[in-house]
């Protein structure tokens, strides 16, 4: 059965491209531009991997990370961000982030990271 990945970013293009690329790799991908809806999805179902933007309205990537750690400690989280402060990075490391990608994201590196995270 294909591994399930959830992609959360308020930029629709990020979601679309990630979906296209990761589907081509054989993963099942769900995307959310609204982080609140994404959080609800995480609460109601289990994903194998979470890819989320850091800065988002209402629910931030950090909130998602904390919630995932709380509900599904075994699920790994990869974070994307256009603008990361040292404080945010340290906080993410303490919350056991799996990987951190500054925007613009290199797709090959992201694919590698996803593969490693899912233990393929």
């Amino acid at each position, binding site marked *: 059965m294909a591994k399930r990945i959830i992609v959360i970013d308020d*930029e629709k*293009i990020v979601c679309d491209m990630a979906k296209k690329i990761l589907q081509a790799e054989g993963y099942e991908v769900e995307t959310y531009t609204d982080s609140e809806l994404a959080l609800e999805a995480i609460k109601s179902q289990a994903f194998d991997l979470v890819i989320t933007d850091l800065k988002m*309205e209402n629910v931030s990537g950090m909130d998602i990370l904390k919630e995932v750690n709380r509900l599904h400690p075994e699920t790994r989280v990869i974070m994307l961000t*256009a603008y990361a402060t040292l404080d945010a990075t340290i906080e993410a490391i303490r919350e056991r982030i799996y990987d951190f990608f500054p*925007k*613009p994201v290199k*797709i090959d590196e992201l694919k590698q990271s996803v593969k490693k995270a899912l233990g393929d």
Partner: protein
Amino acid sequence: MFRTAMSIRKRIIIAAVIQAIIICVICFFGYVSFQAALAKLQAIEIIDDLNISLLEMRKAEKNYFLYKDLSSLDELVTIGQKRYGVLEASRASLVSGLPGLSNKDYGELLHNLRRYVELIQGAIQIKAIPPAQEGEVRKLGHTLTEQSATLLRRERKSVNDIISYSIILLIASLGVVFIIQVVLWQYFFHFLIQEITIMEGMIKMVSEGRLREVATRTFSPHNEIQVAVQAISDMARELEKREQELLQSGKLASLGVLISGVAHELGNPLNNISLIAQTYLSLYDLLGDDDKKNYMGDVYTQSERIKKIVENLLDFSRQKKQELHDVQLGDVVKHSLGLVANQLKISKVKQHLTIADDLPPVSVDAPQIQQVLVNLFINAIQAMEQGGELFIEVGLDREHDQVWVSVQDTGIGINKEILPNIFDPFFTTKSTKGTGLGLSVSYGIIQQHHGEISVESEEGKGTTFIVKIPAQRQDKGD
């Protein structure tokens, strides 16, 4: 009237010289009439003496005719000769230039006196006045007395005339001096007041911050007040230059804060383009024609987004001369909010914008007002480190004909003690993070728009800034 191109000092000197000349002329006339009166009094004295002598001479003549007393004739001759000598000697001084005592009258008097004395002298030699001459002697004596009395009367009248003439002259000249004084005083008063009024207006404009209007006044100064006016104008120009610099520094300070938001804002479309390009390259064979077209369309949209961000930023940072245009304040608010939209997002600040309907336009320099609003938004965001809510409201104050914007945050608030200082230049609570220019520059900008900026704050609850700008009168009636 004096020419306008003269210094006040010159005018005062000219006025003083004119007054001095007038006073000299008055003194001269006073002196002349005093001298005339003095000469007349001298003449009166001489004629008075002559009168007394004549009376004595007539008495001696009478004594001779009554008692044939020859010694009285000797006495008559002595007195007569003495008087004749005095009259002859003072002839020049009494006759010359004196109205009323003509040379002819005087000559007649002298001639008669000499004749009278000669007749008596002749009589003394023959020890009697011949009966044939008795009538002439009596007649001469009588004529002399009358002539002398007439002269005395005339001279007295003449002296009176001179004195009353002098009094009139004195009063008239005092009047003239007074009138000139009043005219000069009025002239200087009006002149100075007029010039000072100009200066007063300019000082008022400077204090209201309307530096441009004062600075653009150029004229060549002709007097001391105009020099001062010129100095005020120069000062305003210098101040305006400084204010422009300050405005720019304030703007750059806001820009520094905006940059972090902009970096994020630019990062997203850049990332999007990058992702599209990478997907396009790696999945090229899998993509259909429609996909490829859509991708390129997305790239175009994203690059337009970048262009817009850069344009906004450039627009904000550019230094421009103040240009007033009729705009809707609500639009300026929306545009300013756009500039900080990302800042709000990453700071977890929720915005609530309310714009009243049917607002009249305002005549403003939109980029400047934008600078003020961006500044207030950034301050609000910085006051809400843990996130919060930003209420922005645009409305109309019908009573004062002003359109107002209120910017209310739910941040840490401002201490009452420092609240009065927040509009001071270089006053900041952000230590090294702030320049202390933002609010002082904002204050200057709003002043220049004849508006008001005010603040209310409660520590721990939040701060509200209110900016009021005069509404443009609309010609169509209600």
